[in-house]
């Protein structure tokens, strides 16, 4: 047990998937050279953008719903301790068992021991970003437990020994031909005549997982919304794999980031409109399951809820940055982002890619561990317009850039600006500096940049060539006096 020291507690290193192996610019450069990836992403994101625009346009009160979603989330974050305790009490009263985890390691240990206590060596999983974030599958494997991903896209990622690249569709970087290849290679029971027709691929997944569903004893899920008032948990999905995992096993373990709590039952009236239309571009997703603790004779008779911090309270401690915790994981900001559309999700290095990932991941890990992400944006603002809970992502990016500079100590840029300020505050010093600058005229002519350590500034900018004669010199020559 560690005592609470009052310092922000970030997600620990060495576990889970919140940090990339290289900074965004390096990863992005490689992704940009992958023409197949760009084609796959361009096709998928343009499809989903059109669908979303159509169903959002149907609602005359979309802006009011966004405002309500934002207000509800702000209230939830401001009173997070109270709502979590209310949720805990309601779940417990209905026969559920609530666990608290400070970080990924604790959450993984809790889930692993619960599965072992249930006597299971296999679990079926509903797509869950929280469990991807903490690297649960790796931890379960280390504990001798095989975790089967059942969402089609997660299955594609798992079978392809790959990493998720999108919040909603983790295999968005794969096209149908690539998916067929993966299924033929990895599914022992697949029909060798499998075509790349999406319906045939979905059918193959159905056959592959059917027996697993019908025999699984432990299911593991995340959660989209948790209602403090009633203790009700909600999972939205499309395929029915979620219903299978939430309904058929005897034991259900749900891992929930603490920011998922919403205050009241009535709040679902807002979020059940905002989320489906923003994520899959449907009026409603095919299936939503809502459950409250344990119901005798219906579904799992043992239910565990694991409440996960893993850096969320560190984000909460930044009064500006905490807005990133309002995210309902719809992925609309990814689909409209010109940067994401070209680099894909892997370049961000975290299970939370795209604009929201660029403001969320650095806050969960500490900015120094994801320092390049707040710069992975052109600040065009499309993400803010698309966000169903009106997270002002561009202003958060700027805020985190400022925090990064402050927390990094003096930079070359800051020192240069300080020097410029000193020079420009005196006409004599300014005049001398202008004359001194002339020695760089030959460099400018050749199209070269500034010398190190200022070279970084001119890598993507032109440095103006210092004039042969300054304005002040011209004036003196014309008028015989200094202005």
């Amino acid at each position, binding site marked *: 047990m560690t005592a*609470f020291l009052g310092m922000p507690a970030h997600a620990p290193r060495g576990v889970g998937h919140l940090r990339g192996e290289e900074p965004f610019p390096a990863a992005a450069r490689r992704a940009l050279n992958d023409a197949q990836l760009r084609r796959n992403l361009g096709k998928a*994101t343009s499809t989903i953008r059109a669908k979303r625009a159509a169903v959002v346009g149907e609602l005359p009160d979309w802006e009011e719903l966004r405002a*309500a979603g934002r207000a509800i989330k702000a209230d939830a974050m401001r009173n997070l*301790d109270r709502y979590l305790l209310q949720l805990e009490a309601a779940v417990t009263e209905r026969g559920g068992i609530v*666990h608290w985890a400070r970080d990924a390691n604790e959450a993984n240990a809790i889930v692993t021991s619960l599965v072992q206590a249930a006597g299971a060596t296999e679990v079926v999983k509903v797509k869950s970003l929280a469990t991807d974030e903490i690297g649960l599958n790796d931890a379960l494997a280390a504990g001798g437990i095989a975790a089967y991903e059942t969402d089609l896209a997660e299955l594609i990622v798992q079978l392809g020994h790959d990493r998720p690249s999108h919040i909603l569709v983790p295999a968005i970087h794969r096209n149908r031909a690539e998916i067929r290849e993966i299924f033929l290679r990895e599914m022992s029971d697949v029909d060798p005549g499998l075509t790349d027709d*999406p319906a045939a691929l979905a059918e193959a997944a159905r056959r592959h997982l*059917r027996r697993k569903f019908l025999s699984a004893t432990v299911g593991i899920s995340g959660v989209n919304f948790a209602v403090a008032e009633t203790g009700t948990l909600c999972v939205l999905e499309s395929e029915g794999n979620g*219903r299978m995992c939430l309904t058929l096993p005897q034991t259900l373990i749900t891992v929930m980031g603490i920011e998922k709590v919403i205050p009241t039952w009535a709040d679902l009236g807002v979020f059940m409109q905002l989320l489906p239309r923003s994520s899959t571009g449907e*009026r409603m997703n095919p*299936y939503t399951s809502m459950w409250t603790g344990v119901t005798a004779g219906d579904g799992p008779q043992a239910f565990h809820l694991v409440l996960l911090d893993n850096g969320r309270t560190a984000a909460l401690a930044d009064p500006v940055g905490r807005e990133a915790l309002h995210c309902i994981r719809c992925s609309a900001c990814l689909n409209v982002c010109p940067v994401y559309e070209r680099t894909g999700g892997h370049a961000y290095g975290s299970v939370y890619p795209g604009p929201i990932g660029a403001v969320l991941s650095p806050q969960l890990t500490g900015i120094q561990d994801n320092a390049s992400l707040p710069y992975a944006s052109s600040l065009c603002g499309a993400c803010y317009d698309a966000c169903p809970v009106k997270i002002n992502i561009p202003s958060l990016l700027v805020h985190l850039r400022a925090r990064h500079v402050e927390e990094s100590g003096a930079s070359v840029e800051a020192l240069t600006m300080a020097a410029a300020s000193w020079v420009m505050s005196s006409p004599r010093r300014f005049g001398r500096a202008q004359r001194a600058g002339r020695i760089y005229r030959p460099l400018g002519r050749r199209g070269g940049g500034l010398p190190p350590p200022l070279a970084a500034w001119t890598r993507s900018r032109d440095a103006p060539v210092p004039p042969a004669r300054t304005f002040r010199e011209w004036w003196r020559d014309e008028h015989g006096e200094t202005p």
Partner: protein
Amino acid sequence: MTAGAREDVLARIRAAERGDSDDAGTAAAGYRQGGELSGSALLDRLAERLVDYRAKVRRVSAETLAAEVEAALAARGARRVVVPAGLEVPLPDSVAVTIDDGLSAAELDSFDGVITGAAAAIADTGTIILDGSAGQGRRAISLVPDYHLCIVPAEVVVELVPEAVAMLAAAASRPLTWISGPSATSDIELERVEGVHGPRTLEVMLLG
């Protein structure tokens, strides 16, 4: 292992929220709480939205219900169906009907279909909602069989999502399943394909 985790996380939250203003900034509820459609226009909207998501829809009355159910099952070729206890629907003699009494998943998998009622339906989104009460049954029975015939009485149909949420407030602690069309996926190139793990055919009878 996690001794003190609860207290630590709560202490972190309270430290993070120190200095927050008490201004609750109460939720702006300017969104629509109630719809404008009623009667047959409401049912028409529900039917249209259900069909849009590839559900089959039949409009029936109390008089035609039995014949329509028989016709639907015959068209489907369903000979063995499972139903929840308390389903008050006339069922044809030509079909073997089993009332669920805690059947295993494997047993449920052997049926040709399931017939249930519904607790609510949302016209705007083409959604039916089951709450596990009499006539709707356990969640598993409307999940495992490949064909789901759902009978929706007109009186449980509302236009908007917030109306359904309000209507279900008293049932909030029951297991709820919201269903909008047959199971589907958009995971391959974000194109919607119907029919994955849940029932691949959803047929809805609007009664009234």
